[in-house]
């Protein structure tokens, strides 16, 4: 237990010390907010509601939870990258020869990355007034545990990937071929209704989809929207024909995280020395 805290604490200390990273990690989400939210907002709104009489689709409201999820994903994955650096700079050996068990090393690292991502995600909410949207305090409180859970899933994914790779270059490659498609095919940035069947399969298997969906259901007042708009916004997810409930999403994310942590632990054991 103490070992988990120590590994977690190290990441937190370093996060608050590294201001360049703190600011740098905001650039991408803000860029996406500007490009998608402001630049394409009007076009998106008329596109989504074309042919319907709906007027209550707000693209900024739709994209904001997506951008926050994207921040969680990117920060989680990049924070997990630090284990490659730990290996290159030797600190990993100090951890590996200590009596801390391998599974606790993986959990500590995962919690460290997840906390960092969680804090970054929360900071995104500072932007809300500038975008002309708001969130009620109760929803915000509901959102916190969900965000942390999503951050844990993404961090354990990053951890597993990082533990399988040997170099930081390899990691950049993975980010490009794994993370970006995961963002685009999750419904984070645009509604994924009326997609070809094969894209639908990817969307359904993508864990980011469920994280984004959970956040949207908390942040957007779904019941006040017309059924038509709900459908157009892609708020009625199905898993190969079965409707997806919030509970099943939570179970899926927790289970997926556990599986990834176990795999990462095995990978740590294998790579001794």
């Amino acid at each position, binding site marked *: 237990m103490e070992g988990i805290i120590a590994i977690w604490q190290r990441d937190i200390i370093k996060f608050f010390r590294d201001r360049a990273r703190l600011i740098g990690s905001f650039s991408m989400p803000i860029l996406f907010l500007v490009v998608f939210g402001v630049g394409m907002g009007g076009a998106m709104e008329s596109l989504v509601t074309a042919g319907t009489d709906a007027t209550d689709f707000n693209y900024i409201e739709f994209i904001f939870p997506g951008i926050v999820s994207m921040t969680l994903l990117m920060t989680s994955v990049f924070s997990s990258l630090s284990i490659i650096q730990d290996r290159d700079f030797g600190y990993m*050996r*100090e951890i590996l020869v200590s009596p801390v068990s391998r599974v606790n090393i993986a959990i500590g690292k995962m919690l460290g990355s997840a906390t960092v991502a969680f804090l970054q995600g929360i900071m995104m909410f500072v932007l809300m007034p500038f975008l002309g949207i708001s969130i009620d305090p109760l929803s915000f409180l509901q959102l916190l545990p969900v965000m942390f859970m999503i951050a844990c899933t993404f961090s354990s994914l990053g951890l597993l990937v990082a533990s399988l790779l040997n170099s930081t270059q390899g990691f950049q490659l993975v980010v490009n071929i794994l993370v970006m498609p995961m963002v685009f095919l999750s419904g984070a940035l645009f509604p994924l209704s009326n997609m070809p069947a094969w894209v639908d399969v990817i969307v359904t298997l993508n864990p980011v989809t469920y994280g984004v969906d959970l956040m949207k259901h908390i942040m957007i007042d779904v019941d006040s929207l017309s059924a038509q708009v709900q459908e157009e916004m892609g708020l009625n997810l199905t898993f190969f024909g079965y409707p997806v409930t919030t509970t099943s999403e939570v179970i899926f994310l927790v289970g997926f995280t556990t599986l990834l942590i176990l795999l990462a632990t095995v990978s740590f054991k294998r790579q001794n020395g």
Partner: protein
Amino acid sequence: MIDVQHLKKTYKSFAAVKDSNFHVKEGEIFGFLGPNGAGKSTTINILSTVLQPTSGTVTINGYDVTKEQNRVRESIGIIFQQNTLDEKLTARENLKLHCKFYRVPRSKRKARIDEVLEIVDLSDNIDTMVEKFSGGMQRRLEIARGLLHYPKVLFLDEPSVGLDPQTRAHIWEYILKLKEKENITMFLTTHYLDEAEISDRVAIMDHGEIIAIDTPKKLKDQLGGDIIELTTTDNEAAVEEIKASFDRVDVELKDEVIYCKVDNSDAFISTFVKRLETPLTGLDIRKPTLNDVFLSFTGREIRD
């Protein structure tokens, strides 16, 4: 304290460590001497649970390194060849994290941190970022960190590699001071001969095999007598001449230098210089070193 029996480590077709056996007593400084690639680091990695042996049994402080890894890990401290500090943290933070990894009781942490920093003379730098430390200071901090959980055995893998001679001497001062104070068993690997000399016992390793284990003195005494190094105007002729006219002299020509092994150089040298007819250009008399021991076992110098 350390017991190694029939230890083997094989990578595919390459045998890094071949059937090694040795025993290290409590409080002993045990040196592992050999050229780079001899299998020293592989051995230390197995002893410190970083690597799994292919076969054989190793126990440390009574615990088996493959079956009771966590017990072994609690019993040992390791100073690696390369830096394993977190340079983006301060000395204190590095030490605090170590206390947590090793479950040092909370109430004892502060006193322990002060104590180990005192030993390595870094008390004034406790809140300095490690990246601002010099190479020697970082090495000292690593030694301090290795002691924090009061290990029974301290492993030092080439502890002074990459340091300047003055810093090296300092590091050794600290290590010897420590040994006097704490009676810690130390296992060190080195390819510096002078460092091996301070060990209570030395194991000489080459090509994955331990070829000799004894005190540095006994190893050198095995060679017997003194070594005279000489150069002459005609080395081949001189070697022939020495072989013909002097009894009980072991003579060898290597790299333009003639090495003569004699029982007692004081008695020998006066008659030798008088009687040798080939003109001498250089002469040096010395006691055998561990390098000569290595040479006599392998036919090569340790630096080859």
